[in-house]
């Protein structure tokens, strides 16, 4: 591959409410066993990108733990590898990353020390599979300066938090609006870009000198008429998970056989860190229907149309419906959970009742857990 990879894994999101209180969005568990960043990392490794930099700063704990070994994505090699860059104290001041472009600018020496001609930039909070080689070939064929991956989305999706794009018939981007109040197009940017490495260095240095910090606003939007910026339409599954509604919806998509098959079985695979948990166990009095259950779970109650992440314990006579139970949750007997997302490591006492009425309810319960 002639490119290095950059994964922008910086942020929290107030649209995630309590879910990003203790972790970056990129570290959100997805589909029972992945973390959000696994999709970007797996796409990189499946596209034979050998050198990948992850820029992160907000609540990076979970993410760093997840990336503690790079071997799961096959980045544990002599040539290249996985580099995690967090803001650091420097001789000329201690600055947080003030934006995506600033994150790259503060680590420009890394970019300069590479020798690959291209850079693939992606955000770490999207669920998708993509061969970046095809994207790169398109970029070269179009003689593009920057190529932006975009997707047409359904009218009912809240477009407000994305950047919208309008292209001419040659796919050159004519209009790029960041987080529009009134959307004039249903084509959104997926936050995946290809750019020549030297071009990126040049644009970043310029932005740095002008004290501009955001890759989208200060580079894409600002240079859209000056540079040749093209759109590349993604037709396969893509979803951003950075709001509670989208997170819930994306997870629930995995109850559909075609989505499950696409991510779980079809080539190429999506990889994640291996945790050594035993197979899931079902005791007597269990009723599970149309649900995903991960390894290490012990189920005693009823689960319908739900996703149960790794290592959860569900007590006797529980009723779980339309809910997402995140990693390592303990649910006491006779508990009713409906339309909820139960935060990781939660302990729910016996005889509790939680129901999301209009919206999805986020349940964060840190009661004492008595392990026998």
């Amino acid at each position, binding site marked *: 591959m002639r490119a290095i990879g950059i994964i922008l894994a910086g942020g929290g999101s107030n649209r995630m409410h309590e879910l990003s209180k203790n972790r970056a969005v990129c570290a959100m568990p997805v589909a029972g066993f992945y973390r959000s960043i696994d999709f970007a990392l797996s796409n990189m490794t499946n596209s034979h990108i050998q050198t990948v930099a992850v820029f992160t700063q907000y609540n990076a704990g979970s993410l760093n733990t997840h990336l503690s070994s790079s*071997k799961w994505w096959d980045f544990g090699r002599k040539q290249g590898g996985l580099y995690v860059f967090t803001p650091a104290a420097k001789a000329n001041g201690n600055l947080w990353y003030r934006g995506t472009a600033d994150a790259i600018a503060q680590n420009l020496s890394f970019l300069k020390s590479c020798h690959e001609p291209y850079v693939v930039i992606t955000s770490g909070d999207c669920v998708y599979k993509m061969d970046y080689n095809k994207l790169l070939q398109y970029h070269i064929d179009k003689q593009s300066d920057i190529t932006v991956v975009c997707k047409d989305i359904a009218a009912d999706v809240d477009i407000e938090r994305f950047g919208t794009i309008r292209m001419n018939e040659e796919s050159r981007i004519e209009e790029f609006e960041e987080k529009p109040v009134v959307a004039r197009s249903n084509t959104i940017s997926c936050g995946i870009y290809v750019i020549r490495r030297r071009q990126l260095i040049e644009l970043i240095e310029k932005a740095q000198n002008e004290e501009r910090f955001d890759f989208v606003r200060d580079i894409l939007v600002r240079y859209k008429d000056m540079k040749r910026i093209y759109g590349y339409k993604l037709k396969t599954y893509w979803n951003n998970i950075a709001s509670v509604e989208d997170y819930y919806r994306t997870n629930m998509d995995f109850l559909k056989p075609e989505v499950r098959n696409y991510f779980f079985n079809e080539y190429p695979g999506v990889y994640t860190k291996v945790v*050594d948990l*035993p*197979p899931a*166990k*079902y005791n007597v009095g269990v009723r599970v229907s149309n649900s995903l259950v*991960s*390894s290490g779970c012990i189920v005693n109650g009823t689960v319908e149309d739900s996703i149960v*992440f790794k290592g959860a314990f569900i007590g006797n006579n529980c009723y779980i419906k339309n809910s997402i139970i995140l990693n390592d949750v303990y649910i006491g007997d006779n508990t009713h959970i409906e339309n909820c997302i139960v935060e990781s490591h939660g302990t729910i006492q016996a005889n509790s009742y939680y129901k999301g009425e209009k919206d999805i309810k986020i349940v964060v319960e840190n009661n004492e857990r008595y392990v026998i």
Partner: protein
Amino acid sequence: MIKKEMIAMLLAGGQGSRLGVLTANMAKPAVSFGGKYRIIDFPLSNCINSGVDTVGVLTQYRPLRLNSHIGIGIPWDLDRNIGGVTILPPYEKSSNSEWYTGTANAIFQNLEYMENYHPDYVLILSGDHIYKMDYETMLDFHKANGADVTIAVMPVPIEEASRFGIMITDEDRKIVDFEEKPEKPRSNLASMGIYIFSWEALKEALITNQDQPGLDFGKHVIPYCKEKGRSLYAYEFDGYWKDVGTLTSYWEANMELIDIVPEFNLYEEYWKIYTTNDVQPPQYLGPESSTSRSIIGEGSEIYGEVHNSVIGCGVKIGKGTVVSHSIIMNGTEIGENCNVEKAVIAEKVVVGNGVRLGEGEEKENETKPGIYRDGIVTIGEKSVIPDNVSVGKNTMISGVTTSTDYPNGMLDSGRTLDKAGDR
């Protein structure tokens, strides 16, 4: 200089012929166990959990599955710069080339491997038992007694003692005598086939006895050490230890895992068992599925009913199918409206629709009554079973079968249908 205090030598070359068709294409340590594991995962995990990070795995019989499972040892953190896991197959020498002719002979042929690490102690293990054991505690016992050889033993019911090698000890656990499968046992301490040798004692015994045909630890090396006046001690182990040498004991050991709180608990945080995770996604249970008292591996899709069973990874069970008291290994697909009762189905088997396994009266198996017994239906890996056939008890099926192999759509109890041959 490279130096390891204790290294382990894991004997994994045996066929385990009493597991019948399950070991037709793989050595016994590579056979699946408990949904996602293979038997060798238990001693390998015990090694790393005990701080033993240098393990030689001696292979001989059909090693491919074992080799690919172990790889460079990543799942057990045995991918090390110094030490780690090394596969040790028999090899050609300038003067004589021989297979591993016995347990101790295999170790003798790898003296050079062991010498590289300048060990003080060598742990000898076999790859065919299910247990969790801290070898470091056993080593402490070995050191405290200043022993030359320590043999792990476990108490067995005295009426069963005549099936084992029995150690007779004094009150300090020093071995005063031993008997191999005695008719009238004088003790109930059975050898588990786990030994710690002080390096000098092991090396001397192996070199002195190198010309003994079929050099074996139980038959030759241990008696030799005793005769020579070495100090032998018995280390008593009182945890769960299960020999899964026969199909019946293999089936029973799997079934014990589905108890509410099994004696052998895989869910403890402490002392995890590691394995190669080829499949990691969660399992899907369909709208009309039903499960009880079962464990199910990752990535399986269950549309039917599963009761009292151990299901591996990536298994598909069709709508209307009922599986009970069975073991189904990785990657097997079972069609719709089947009934599977007390079956052991190996990896990547395809069972058609409307198949009934384990029906009818019990009859003795026609070819190997000592192996295919207790009503278990055994199906070898990559077998194919056509739609709408009925299969009796104590049967064995292997290879791609078609409806012509089942006269009147039936395979009677006790029949053996082997179409795989020796590949």
